[in-house]
């Protein structure tokens, strides 16, 4: 059975906090709940960005997600977006 939205958010944050690398692809979150459809997972991850709990890191061609305090930009400050 798929996790509730709040449970899924908590699982995503836990994954982002504990993963060896600070930047994660959206697919890395799929393992948080195999019963959640990818598009729903994307919506929840993007909700977490809106809430400021996750942020985007983009190479220009690919976008990844990170916990703001785990990542610094080239200017030496952690993410605020």
């Amino acid at each position, binding site marked *: 059975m798929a996790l509730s939205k709040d449970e899924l958010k908590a699982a995503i944050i836990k994954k982002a906090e504990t993963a060896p690398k600070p930047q994660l*692809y*959206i*697919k890395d979150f799929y393992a948080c709940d195999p019963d959640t*459809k*990818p*598009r729903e997972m*994307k919506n929840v991850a*993007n909700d977490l*960005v*809106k809430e400021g709990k996750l*942020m*985007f*890191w*983009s*190479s*220009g*061609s*690919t*976008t990844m997600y*990170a916990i703001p305090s785990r*990542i610094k*930009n*080239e*200017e030496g400050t952690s*993410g605020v*977006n």
Partner: protein
Amino acid sequence: MAKHETPLLDELEKGPWPSFVTDIKRQAEKKPECWDILGQVELSYKERITHWKHGGIVGVFGYGGGIVGRYSDMPKRFPGVEHFHTVRLAQPASKYYTTKHLRDICDLWEKYGSGMTNMHGSTGDIIMLGCRTEALEPFFYELTHNIQQDLGGSGSNLRTPANCLGQSRCEWACYDTEEACHHLTMHYQDEIHRPAFPYKFKFKFSGCPNDCVAAIARSDVAVIGTWRDNIRIDQAAVKEYVAGNIPGNGGAHAGRDWGKFDIQKEVIALCPTECMWMEGGELKIDDSECTRCMHCINVMPKALRPGADQGATICCGAKAPILDGAQFATLIVPFMKASADNEFEELIEFIEKIWDWWMEVGKNRERVGETMQRIGLPTFIKVMDLEPIPQHIKEPRSNPYVFWQEEEVEGGFERDVDEFRARHAA
């Protein structure tokens, strides 16, 4: 006065073509930070290594695309390009805009950025090159509030959809490309502005098989206008072409004397499927063999027109040569009605089926065409709930994409072939 010596770049101003070096020097008179672009690029030419650092966390609030972070790895030496982010703006459908709109965008970019632009990027976006992080939000605010201009796409997003001029200017457009592009752009605002996929995803809309936006070469879903009845022929106009009273190709090559128009040499002999011939002074076409190359229609536009039963062909999986070389799109649906009457329902359903599959099985940084190639077309066709058709086969007998499953073969794979051949010669 030049801030840096640029002997290598200066060489690029000596050729017959306009030079970006000259453009940047001109811009540097107004925006001194542009001298540092030249200085850094000169150093890269000398050392044969880039001094740009690509990517980052920069963006504007609420958006996960449209801004591409870029920094210099030598900010002390080239402070003008310490931050040099790219901002992509969504191009209007068919790239129709007023000069006022462009001037407003350029004025705003002079105010907040380097003033350098790239018209247009390969996806179609208007590219604004070079601004500092702290300028992004104020630029975005004025862009959206004062000019009503949105950002384009970047990252793992749906990129700004693009379309040809379509029915606004072109008599060959087989569906309303502008309506389709606008409708899907509005329908998928979330996917355009927030990352959704394993990698970038593009759709492009061409009104006819001339494919003026090169959808078949560049987009994950190419929607290319076509027809499923017969090419419409005006035999009287054919005679006028043959008599030399109407110039071929709309007179496009009239600057040189090519001799009298020769329908046999210039049209019939060039048909790739040899499906045309003259009979009793009339042009005949075996439409069942037509591959929609458009050559005959392009040469004799007053005599030949696309058929009246119009729609679109859907091809999937094109990409540029980042990995494994460039790839053309593969034909998936030969004909689909593309109409605003049902809000492009069939097309939207098709696209979302692809997304659901690709988001599940696509690898990180894998375009959908690469996923199709890795998993195989038979699986893709099944996922799309389609029946295999002859058009799915690239080269009959040499490279068949479609394989039979045992349950689809009468008698299965264990049947007695000799007994079968006794009744059916090979």
